[in-house]
């Protein structure tokens, strides 16, 4: 909506929100997500930058935890934030930005997994991808954690996607059941059940090492 089409009341309201948000920024206080979204919706592009910098590592690690591939993490994370950038003007604050962002991220990762399945079916790219992914993964994590990290990554990767997602969101990212249900767009009972089964599968797989 252009300024010329806004009513005076709307203009005052938007200006006041902007002023308030700017005051938070000047004060260096950590503004909550809603304020930043409001600022962005009112045209402050810097607010989006703050949101990105706040969540970029979580999103990157979420992708990494699910896909176990660091070579695609940044590209995917950027696509997620581009999608957020495009959808954020329509954000209606019906859920927290945090869970909404996670939902966008999880859906994007699911798309990527499906796309990879199709692509690998039709091409010989798999071998190259796997080799690159392995190398990049080893270079991206601290050397001393290689062995345990690799074991956990392998075990997680072996889980079906519907059980892997709740485990990652709960045990790696620390989301609550409600948040996970919201992110995965399913009931809490389903989350609990899948989480329980996912953990049982992990335990079965890792049992020889759990001494």
């Amino acid at each position, binding site marked *: 909506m252009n300024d010329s089409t806004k009513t005076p009341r709307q203009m005052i309201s938007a200006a006041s929100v902007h002023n308030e948000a700017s005051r938070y920024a000047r004060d260096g206080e950590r503004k909550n997500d809603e304020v930043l979204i409001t600022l962005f919706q009112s045209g402050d592009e810097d607010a989006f*930058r703050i949101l990105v910098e706040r969540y970029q590592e979580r999103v990157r690690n979420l992708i990494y935890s699910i896909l176990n591939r660091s070579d695609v*993490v940044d590209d995917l994370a950027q696509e997620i934030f581009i999608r957020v950038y495009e959808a954020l003007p329509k954000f209606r604050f019906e859920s927290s930005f945090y869970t909404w962002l996670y939902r966008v991220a999880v859906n994007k990762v699911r798309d990527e997994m499906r796309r990879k399945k199709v692509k690998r079916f039709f091409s010989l790219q798999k071998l190259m991808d796997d080799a690159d992914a392995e190398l990049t993964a080893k270079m991206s994590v601290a050397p001393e954690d290689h062995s345990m990290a690799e074991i956990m990554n392998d075990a997680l990767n072996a889980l079906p996607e519907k059980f892997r997602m709740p485990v990652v969101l709960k045990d*790696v990212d620390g989301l609550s059941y409600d948040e996970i249900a919201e992110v995965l767009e399913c009931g809490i009972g389903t989350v609990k059940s899948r989480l329980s089964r996912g953990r049982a599968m992990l335990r079965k797989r890792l049992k020889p090492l759990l001494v």
Partner: protein
Amino acid sequence: MVNAMSRKKLANALSLYLDDALSAAEKSEIEAYLAAHPEAQKELDELRLIKTHLMQKPRLMHNDWFWTSLSRKLVQKNSPGGQSGQERENFFPFRRKLLPLAAPLSLTLAVMIGVGIFLQRDSLFRFYSEKKKQIQNAYSAGILQGKILPLFTNLNKDQVLRFALFGTLPLDTEAKTALRFDASSDSGYRIEIAKNNANSVPTVTASEFYSALNMTPNQHQIVDSILGSAKEKIQSSVFVGENSSLAIHSELVNLNRMVMSNIAATLQPRQRVRFKKYLEERHAPFTFVANVAPSVPPQKLFRAINATPVNDTYLVLTPDTICFSEIPFNMDSIRKNFEQALSSLTAIQVRTHAIVRRFRERSFTPPSGGERFDVRSGEDYFAVELHKNLGDFPDMPMLFKVVPRLPQGMTASDSLVMRFFRAPLPPGGTPFKGTAQMPQRADRSLKNSERRGIDLDSVIENMSKPKPEEKKYRNPYEL
């Protein structure tokens, strides 16, 4: 006593307990259960350990350039003509949203094509069969027109024996047309193609020959080997080629004498007498005499029959030319081509009669210089007489020299050989003379009056007969 829980219920309860998501009552209940069931406690400990490891999962290193690259993409995307990442990644020739439709459509199309092929299978089979046949025909025609083929590929033992005794090779199944060789004529070597001579060459079979001479089994074996070697030599000595050309190896003119001499050397004195009588009774143009001069042993003669020719000199006859030519034939390649042609053809068109007809019909301009040769022709024959020793041919002194058979009171010029070949020297000289070195082009002023040539079409049948089983011949003298 706490009752045992089902596996699923226990797993759910432990998962919730781990997350501290149970109510106080449920928590105390599960704790009591854990106290009573150490294996459940152990399971809980393991789940807790896994959770701890997952919580401590190494994190990715911070990417300081994340925003920089993201903002660049955002600027790119917001610029006019910019594409979204998703659109750029689309490697299908249609919009991604149509992807779910593409799979069933592709499947339907594949099924339709498969059904179409199944329904039209007879037509397709016919089409490809005809295509294959056409290709085979074209291939075979290409082989026959553009390559050289051996003329005698299916000689049997009787025919080789007839060649040894009478110097003739059949060019058709009824022996009406024959290729004849004589190295004993007064004027030199003679090669002749003649027809209507079925009566002049008596029918001789190997078995009848063996019994007439009362041969022992060992002698059978030796003579079989000699004839087998001669057969192979003949096969690799006469070829037909493009434009009805005929190539005859120069060594072939002496082969029948070598074979006859070798057979004679195999026999006992009494058998040799029978052999001479046998030749006489059948009016053979040759006989043999013991060589008083030092001669080669029969083993050496046998080896000479088997030996690879020392030269590649061929007498080449084409409808327009007679010449001697060095042709290094690759016998393996020729045999292979011929077998391929035979396997795909029911009949082979070899028309050597064109050579005969052309020579009969042309006029002659005498050349000058070089070795002389005469070409004689009549209604049913044409002959080439070579006034030279072929030079490289190993004219070895044989133990039994093969000579023209001369009845009492007959001179060499009126010998049986001459009468046998039915080519008496005309009183006025030779009708055609040429040189052995220079190819002679024919005068193309053909006469239209007579075009009756020697019909060699029945050679087709002879050549397309199944090849007899290969027999490996060894030197019988080394047994």
